């Protein structure tokens, strides 16, 4: 009987997540704010439905009352996140909030299924990180000098990476972090953000050839330290993020070609120089031939995905215990195995939807610093998703990065949530920016009109009261802003 429930719930969840994903993209096609609002609400309802079904199944399978308690705690967390964000920042992008919660929700479902204790830990980190992230948009909005701390970003980034190399500990063949008072910290996760700020501030300062050379050298230095400390994933991400930012800042295809050329050459050198790089490539080419020599991770991942098939085995019906690093790097395989490839493909599309929104924001910002930050962080996010999913599906060699917001792991979670919050901050900035422009336009218009009126009418002293003149255009600007906003996704 439980079998049947599990079986049916599996299909139901697939239908729900498909509907959710459809809304992620179809919303871009609507302009009516009320319509949008109702679509975004529907997304929330769909998420809560998937969540409750998943936990119901997990309760039936484990018959553990803890599950229900944990479920309620999660509902509180998601609701608080949505309510707090939208109330503190009415201008926030609702779609990004929804997707963020959806990804966290999927992550918590899978982690609970894998290991209750680590899911609880993850929950606590999520709660803390969201609380922390709530202040980020304020900082972005209020600190106008963020773009002037270029040197600080460079030093902070390189020093924290260097510290890892010196006192680093080895985990899964890579020196990723160190432990302070029982909390392990992976600086490379946060360095990605700092790096984006560094490049953005540098490009804002100057786009002259000399400055670009210096910036490139420093970027290459970041990458080098990461390669030496065997964090290939982070090295690749920094490399790609830099190329993307360089291209958008300069519109110079030659830079990209040179960058790609240098990157390819460096990969070949790295392949021959470092055994851990070679192992990954060999395991990627034929994980079954190299099964005992590093290939088993990818092989087990493929078994999981293949055995699960389109519709998955159902929660608790698969054997994710066989997948190595199942709770972080290979969590996508667990999702594919138990919830199905269709569900997993929807997950990919949700990530892509976030990225599209991020780039949307980036392209509409006028200030080059903010534009670069949005672009850099967006690229950082989506490329990490690509490396993770590509790696576990044998599309590309696996590089050992987490799936942001879904995988277990504090550093990754905190840095991704901060990243999302920064972009939200930029989104709000853009709204401000636009209001500002509208207002100035109105003022000019009004000044013109009143100038004409003044010509007709002889001027009287004290005839121009300050307040009405200021408040009227603002009201108008707000009205204008609203009609403009209709074309925007929130």
């Amino acid at each position: 009987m439980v079998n049947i429930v599990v079986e049916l719930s599996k299909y139901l969840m697939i239908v729900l997540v498909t509907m959710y994903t459809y809304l992620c993209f179809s919303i871009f096609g609507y302009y009516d704010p009320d319509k949008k609002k109702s679509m975004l609400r529907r997304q929330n309802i769909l998420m809560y439905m998937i969540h409750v079904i998943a936990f119901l199944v997990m309760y039936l399978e484990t018959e553990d009352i803890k599950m229900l308690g944990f479920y309620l705690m999660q509902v509180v967390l998601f609701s608080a996140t949505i309510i707090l964000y939208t109330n503190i920042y009415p201008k926030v992008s609702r779609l990004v909030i929804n997707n963020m919660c959806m990804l966290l929700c999927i992550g918590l479902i899978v982690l609970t299924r894998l290991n209750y204790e680590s899911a609880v830990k993850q929950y606590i980190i999520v709660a803390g990180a969201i609380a922390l992230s709530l202040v980020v948009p304020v900082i972005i909005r209020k600190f106008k000098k963020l773009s002037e701390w270029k040197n600080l970003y460079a030093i902070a980034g390189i020093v924290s990476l260097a510290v890892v190399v010196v006192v680093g500990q080895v985990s899964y063949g890579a020196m990723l972090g160190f432990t302070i008072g029982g909390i392990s910290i992976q600086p490379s996760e946060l360095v990605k953000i700092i790096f984006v700020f560094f490049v953005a501030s540098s490009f804002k300062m100057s786009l002259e050839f000399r400055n670009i050379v210096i910036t490139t050298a420093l970027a290459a230095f970041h990458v080098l330290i990461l390669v030496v400390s065997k964090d290939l994933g982070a090295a690749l991400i920094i490399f790609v993020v830099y190329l993307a930012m360089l291209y958008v800042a300069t519109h110079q295809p030659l830079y990209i070609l040179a960058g790609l050329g240098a990157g390819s050459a460096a990969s070949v050198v790295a392949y021959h120089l470092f055994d851990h790089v070679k192992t990954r490539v060999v395991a990627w080419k034929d994980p079954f031939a190299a099964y005992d020599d590093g290939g088993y991770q990818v092989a087990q991942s493929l078994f999981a995905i293949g055995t699960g098939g389109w519709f998955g085995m159902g929660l608790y019906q698969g054997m994710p215990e066989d997948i190595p690093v199942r709770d972080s790097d290979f969590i996508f395989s667990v999702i594919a195995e138990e919830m199905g490839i269709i569900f997993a493909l929807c997950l990919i599309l949700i990530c892509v939807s976030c990225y599209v929104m991020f780039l949307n924001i980036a392209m509409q910002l006028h200030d080059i610093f903010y534009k670069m930050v949005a672009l850099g962080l967006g690229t950082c996010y989506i490329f990490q998703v690509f490396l993770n999913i590509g790696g576990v599906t044998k599309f590309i060699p696996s590089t050992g990065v987490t799936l942001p917001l879904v995988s277990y792991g504090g550093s990754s979670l905190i840095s991704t949530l901060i990243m999302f919050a920064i972009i939200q901050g930029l989104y709000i900035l853009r709204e401000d920016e636009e209001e500002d422009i509208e207002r100035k336009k109105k003022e000019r218009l009004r000044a013109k009109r009143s100038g004409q009126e003044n010509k007709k009418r002889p001027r009287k002293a004290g005839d121009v009261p300050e307040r009405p003149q200021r408040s009227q255009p603002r009201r108008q600007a707000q009205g204008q802003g609203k009609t403009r906003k209709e074309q925007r996704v929130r």
Partner: protein
Amino acid sequence: MTYIFVALFLVMMGYIAYFQVVRSEEIIRSPYNARLDAYADRVTRGNIVDKSGNVLAKSVMVDGEEAREYPYGNMFAHVIGYSDQGKSGLESVENYDLLTSHAFFLEKLVNEFQDKKNMGDTVVTTLDLNLQQAAYNAMGSYKGAVVVIEPATGKILAMVSKPDFDPNTVAANWEALNSDENSVLLNRATQGQYAPGSTFKVVTALEYMRENVGYASYSYNCTGAIEQDGVTIHCYGGNVHGPVNFQDSLAYSCNASFSNIGLSLDTKKFQETTKGLLFGSKLPSVLPYSKSSFSLESESSSADKMMTAMGQGKTQVSPYHMALITAAIANGGTLMKPYLVDTVTNYSGQEVEKNMPEEYGTLMTAEEAAQLKQLMKGVVDYGTASVLSGQGYTAAGKTGTAEYSSDKEKDHSWFIGMTNVDNPELVISVIIESSDGSAKAVNIAKQVFDAYYY
């Protein structure tokens, strides 16, 4: 920018879909995949039957526990394999199908509700109980292997390997079986590596034909031995064949004549030809196999060249591979991909999946194949395999005797051949290890042919 990444993701999603549709089934069948065993919790392992439905392996209940029963005991030990102590043979290869149920969905639903297991699918093999039985009995207590293939389709009709074991008691006797000095668990048909002996002369003949358009006018005067660079090669059993042409050389299996041919061959081209016949490369096979090897360099000594030409040398081959070469000759040069599973049906017999004959590749031209067939017919008509002549069926083939140690008394006895030469129906490859001369592989082939035709 956006487009690049969105495109990248679309490609990746396409790849995942492709993986699921095309590659996943092959991948999840891997014996490394422990997940399949979990299927056994919900599905009763299906039956394996021969081509006419005789049950070769089935699941039975013993003391409330599911157990595997093999009604023919040792007869199919290697090809069907076992599933109690790890898995081998078809039990391993077909694990996925056996543990997948395509029963009628309502029936499955009812079972789910009652928490009862569904019945797994039935694997219908290409094996022919009659031929397997004949080959198995003919081999008696000799060590060796027999492979029978239908050349026009690639269907494997029989595969026997001796010594054997009882798959019904594998788990109980595991220690003994595993440490047995005769390697009883080894499937000699596909994994045994033997010097091909004179059966290799067919390959040498092909090479000679390729290098010499006028091969038909070849002649040689056999004095019972040939000497080159201080090494003497004798004909088998001290025979002196006198003046022989190309066909006679093969029919009498004249070592001196073939050594003479071997000395004249271009090493590079010879390598190419053996490569074309799948020496040193992958073989089409569903069961695990050993790659064959052929080594001859231009620097090789005359002795090596002579020995290699007559099938001694360093050449190593499995009975299965020799069967494939013979099948290609029988089928006009084209090798059909050999297969063991004809159809997969649900437990009530409804077809789920059918394997169709498939070309694997062209190993030689149709003319070459026809010529070789003619030469091999001579072997039966008036040569070393004449016991097969004058039967109710026509046959062609090649015998072989391979020395494998300093013990001159005992040799491996080989036979490769086919029946109904104009339109070959059966292809056979037989090896008897360490025969004292009384047991001949060709006699075993004859018993199998007789079982098929009489």
